[in-house]
């Protein structure tokens, strides 16, 4: 066993909430649905929860095995390893995309002169050192950071209530249904179904029977937070919500309570730092642990930094500019992510059922 730590189902829930909030805290998902984004998020939450049911059912069926070990059992050593490598690519690439969101946001709004490599390396060092301390440390980090982030979101939302214009949310369902469904699907693929990386973590639950409920609870809480943020942004910014790259950041700039509470947008940036850190760490952890299992290593720790650097390099080279990143996120990613989020876990689950794996009391290690 490469990971000796165990986490409780509550810790898993909190970590998952942080993971889902991740970069969606700043790039509100469903943005292309305009003021109906909250409906798209609600629908996306449903689709995402269904997807989550598939992979949680798969992993929890095998109790304390990660997806890498499951693939070996279900498909045999060779094909299993190939499929595992596909997953590893997805985790690595997703990590690079989150790093991209991170660096594009901060270089635009706060640190225009800081080189992106430096910014990426700093955040990667922090993530690597957390991953080095194992899953328990990561889960405990989330116990501090996630409640903090959610309370900050509620605080700024309260401050913005005087600026709400609920007419901005009307008429409900203004979009053609096809566009709304596409938007909902893109919300499901980013951020909800990205929780598929937890196929690497669910195995370390101390009580695996509670895993399914923990995952769905976490998705619903994160979904509600995102819906509230989306309604707030639409109510405050009106039709401009679709024009801004980072609507939450703009909406919070509007706060002005008697000239005392102003310029609070840095809170949004801090939220993004903490939640982005959790998301990148989870993805790095998944990639590193998976790679170590594929290669049958004794420990995953020596490869943390190399894989982290690889992620940074991928982030530096995969997109040329912000609009390319957004285009990829909105137009290509919802399709690109389908095999990793739905198809492969579903096929694995079906084959496992047909082969009646795992064999109870069998000679399986």
């Amino acid at each position, binding site marked *: 066993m490469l990971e000796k730590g165990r986490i409780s189902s509550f810790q898993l829930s909190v970590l998952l909430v942080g993971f889902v909030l991740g970069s969606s805290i700043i790039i509100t998902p469903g943005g292309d649905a305009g003021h109906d984004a909250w409906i798209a998020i609600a629908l996306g939450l449903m689709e995402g929860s269904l997807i989550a049911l598939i992979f949680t059912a798969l992993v929890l069926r095998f109790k304390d095995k990660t997806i890498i070990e499951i693939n070996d059992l279900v498909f045999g050593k060779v094909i299993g390893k190939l499929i595992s490598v596909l997953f590893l690519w997805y985790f690595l690439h997703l990590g690079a995309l989150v790093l991209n969101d991170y660096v594009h946001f901060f270089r*635009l*709004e*706060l*640190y*225009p*002169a*800081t*080189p992106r490599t*430096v910014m990426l390396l*700093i955040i990667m060092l922090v993530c690597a050192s957390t991953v080095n301390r194992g899953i328990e440390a990561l889960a405990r980090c989330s116990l501090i950071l996630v409640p903090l982030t959610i309370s900050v979101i509620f605080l700024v939302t309260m401050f913005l209530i005087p600026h709400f214009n609920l*007419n901005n949310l*009307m*008429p409900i369902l*203004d979009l053609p249904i096809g566009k709304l469904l596409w938007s909902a699907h893109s919300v499901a693929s980013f951020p909800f179904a990205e929780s598929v990386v937890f196929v690497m973590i669910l195995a370390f639950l101390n009580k695996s029977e509670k895993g399914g409920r923990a995952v769905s609870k976490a998705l619903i809480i994160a979904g509600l937070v995102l819906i509230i943020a989306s309604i707030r942004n639409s109510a405050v*910014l*009106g*039709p*401009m919500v679709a*024009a801004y790259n980072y609507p939450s950041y*703009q909406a919070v*700039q*509007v706060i*002005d309570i008697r000239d005392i509470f102003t*310029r609070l947008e840095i809170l949004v940036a801090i939220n993004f730092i903490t939640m982005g850190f959790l998301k990148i760490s989870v993805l790095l952890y998944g990639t590193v642990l998976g790679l170590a299992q594929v290669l049958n290593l004794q420990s995953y720790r020596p490869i943390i930094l190399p894989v982290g650097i690889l992620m940074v390099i991928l982030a530096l080279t995969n997109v040329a500019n912000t609009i390319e990143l957004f285009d990829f996120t909105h137009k290509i990613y919802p399709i690109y992510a389908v095999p990793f989020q739905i198809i492969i876990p579903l096929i694995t689950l079906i084959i496992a059922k047909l082969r009646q794996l795992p064999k109870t009391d069998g000679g399986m290690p």
Partner: protein
Amino acid sequence: MKNRQQGKISLVILLSIISVFIVGCWDSRELSTLSLIAGLGFDLDPATKRATLTYQSIVPSQVKPSPSMGGGEGKQTGSGGLQSIQLDHDTGLSPYEVLNRYTQHGSRIPFYQHTQVIVIGKAAAEHGLYPFLDTVIRNPAGRPNILLAISDNKASDILAVEDGMENIQAVGMANIIKLSARFSKYPAVTCLDFTSRFIGKTTAPVAPIMGVFEETGPEGKRQKKIRINGTAVFKGDKMIGKLNEQESSGLLWVINQIEKGFVIIPEASLEIIGSKTKIIPELTGGKIKITVEIEEEANLIQYNNARNITPDLIHQLEKAQAREIESQVKAVIKKSMALNADIFDFGGAVHRKYKKEWKKMEPRWDDIYPTIEVSVKVKTRLDEIGDINKAIMTE
């Protein structure tokens, strides 16, 4: 023991690595290298298409605490005194060319995070604001809640006037705009409000107009003052007309932005306590009818005749007040129909109620808007009559 020593060594290494990162901040900005722009003026010469930006920057060392905060002479005026603001301007073909030119003579980096107000010259507003507006909202340093004002002449004239109780004149200007909005005279319009109306296609943006006037002060000196004297109406990014004082109040009644303020009728003055407006569109046989329902509550603060106030009289005053509000609203509706500019967001109200029909109406809104039948219903209530219940003089 060995472990602890190793820990210490790695701590030292870690700290020295961190210090490299946190000290050598690429984005550090020192106050002494910044020029805080409090007010920004944008002018355009229609003939040469050259843009002029006027910067009113704060000179931090000269900002004194305001007189009410304890001592101090307040703002120093006259040519000899030091000033807490400094004016600068540049011209060029596009807003950014002008900003770029600033570096040829400015000793400090312009910093826009504390900009209070943006003043746009009349010629620029009539010529089209798009390039300038894009500069303001695209730039991460521009905040969505900067106030906008249109100058009735050139923007640079307004920014040059030394007036008001504030050390920094742009702060004073922002306060004038906010106060006039609080007392329901003219709308206060932020960049966000303006662009939201702009992006909505059918809704016409508005902004208060400021002007300079000269008067003889109490000491017999001629002095310049700034005041708001109207509301600019835009169609797209071009200014097409102006609302006067009465029409501006009418606009605020319709768009439900009445906060405080007064209604003056021939026999009395009334203080507004609260007001709520509903815009109710109705679509019958392809024709749009809009009902503007205003419910207002006021207190009596002055009565011109030496008569006792009776319930009957209150009733009369309520009616007279409703007539006054109605006439303001009707005036602005007439003006907006004449300009064919939907400044009330009637289009939005129709969209919210009839979203299917709206798809067809939206492209032809310019043809539809002047034909809309608008009826105004005003309900007023007079609440308090003040500290006295008897006329103190009898006729």
